[in-house]
């Protein structure tokens, strides 16, 4: 399937479903090293996104991404709202008004999303945040596109790298967010935002 408007809408549906499915797990991860609201907040956000997508009509993937952004920003309530919201907003801008994403545009979209998160949250790789999943995903996508892979393969490379990236947060001490108050006690726990990033990118692959 081409990465077109229908794909973007299916990505939203699959994301809402997978976040709902993993809500309890994300709550548990966040309760261990944060304030315990990540699963609930993200689930509420993507339910609102789903309602808006069901209610609207869209001509481009970028238009879908923009609705995701505004709904997440206005409904999530925790740090994930402005962070993922900014990611989708920058992704929408990078997608522009193309009808479908080719490999290079997809890399630009993912890069813009990651850069949006970094500029909003001021986190770097190794701070035990969602950036630890996003950055290797962007790098892998860029390498796959440079090697001539299809958009679907580029997306798969990004999602696979995000899994490894999320796992890399387990042994880290957090330098950003609520977990940074815990010091060494955060070691041994996965960052919930990195894990939800994995689910979001995997949903994009499943929709493709």
């Amino acid at each position, binding site marked *: 399937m081409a990465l077109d408007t229908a794909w973007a809408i299916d990505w939203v549906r699959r994301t809402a479903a997978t976040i709902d499915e993993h809500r309890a797990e994300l709550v548990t991860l966040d309760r261990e090293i944060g304030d315990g*609201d990540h699963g609930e907040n993200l689930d509420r956000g993507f339910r609102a996104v789903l309602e808006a997508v069901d209610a609207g009509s869209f001509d481009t993937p970028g238009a879908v991404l923009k609705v995701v952004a505004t709904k997440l*920003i*206005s409904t999530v*309530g925790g*740090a994930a*709202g*402005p962070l993922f919201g900014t990611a989708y907003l920058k992704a929408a801008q990078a997608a522009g008004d193309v009808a479908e994403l080719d490999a290079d545009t997809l890399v630009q979209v993912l890069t813009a999303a990651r850069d949006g998160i970094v500029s*909003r*949250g001021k986190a770097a790789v190794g701070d035990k945040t969602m950036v630890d999943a996003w950055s290797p995903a962007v790098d892998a996508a860029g390498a796959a596109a440079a090697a001539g892979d299809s958009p679907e393969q580029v997306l798969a490379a990004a999602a696979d790298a995000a899994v490894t990236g999320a796992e890399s947060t387990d042994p880290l001490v957090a330098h*950003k967010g609520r977990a940074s108050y815990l010091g060494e006690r955060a070691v041994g726990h996965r960052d919930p935002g990195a894990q939800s990033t994995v689910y979001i990118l995997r949903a994009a692959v499943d929709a493709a």
Partner: protein
Amino acid sequence: MTVGILIVSHSAAIATGTVELARQMAADVPLVAAGGTDDGGIGTSFEAITAGIEELADAEAVVVLCDLGSAYLTTDTALDFLDDDVRARVHVSQAPLVEGAVAAAVAAQTGGDVDAALAAAASAAGSEADASRASSPSGDGPGGAAPVSGAGPVDDVAASETVELVNESGLHARPAAEFVKTAAKFDAEVRVNGVDAKSLLAIMALALPRGASVTIEGTGADAQDAVDALVALVRSGFGE
């Protein structure tokens, strides 16, 4: 120049409580609370922050104080959606919420502009001891940084008087705010027991109880008037 203050917290109770606390010392400053999520839970609301800035549209500048991480993130995101001319009026302070709000509100109440309000909030950032140190002028400034006790009188003090605190609660928050408001009416550099008499936090950090001696010193053209007014205020017991 009117300065409005927006309090952004994860908790509606913290936001409204902080507004009430600050309003006690700054009755005329527009203060708006943006706390909690839209459905009344714990979190920060893009809508509430945006609405709060809109509510402060009449203020020439808005100082925003936030509690924890996502309060800053949501505020920054809300600012990105504002028109440039509105955005330019809004300033996010990194100061701790409660102390920063009170300090900024008192600065605004006493006629301070947005820079004064931000500086007052910033002076709340450290410990109390840091705050009183930060509020002192540097060593080469008028009045010097020399403490009054132990180091002898400062050479260029133009007026000085020592009085006893007679009111029940000493120089606690409300009397301290009255003290700052009065001191701010004068151009003179005024110091109380060695700290800046125009810095609410520095004065509160002194924690002076009833019966304590208060030495008020002024330098500058209207120093004598300033010292007289402040001495009269202390002797009046701040209306308690």
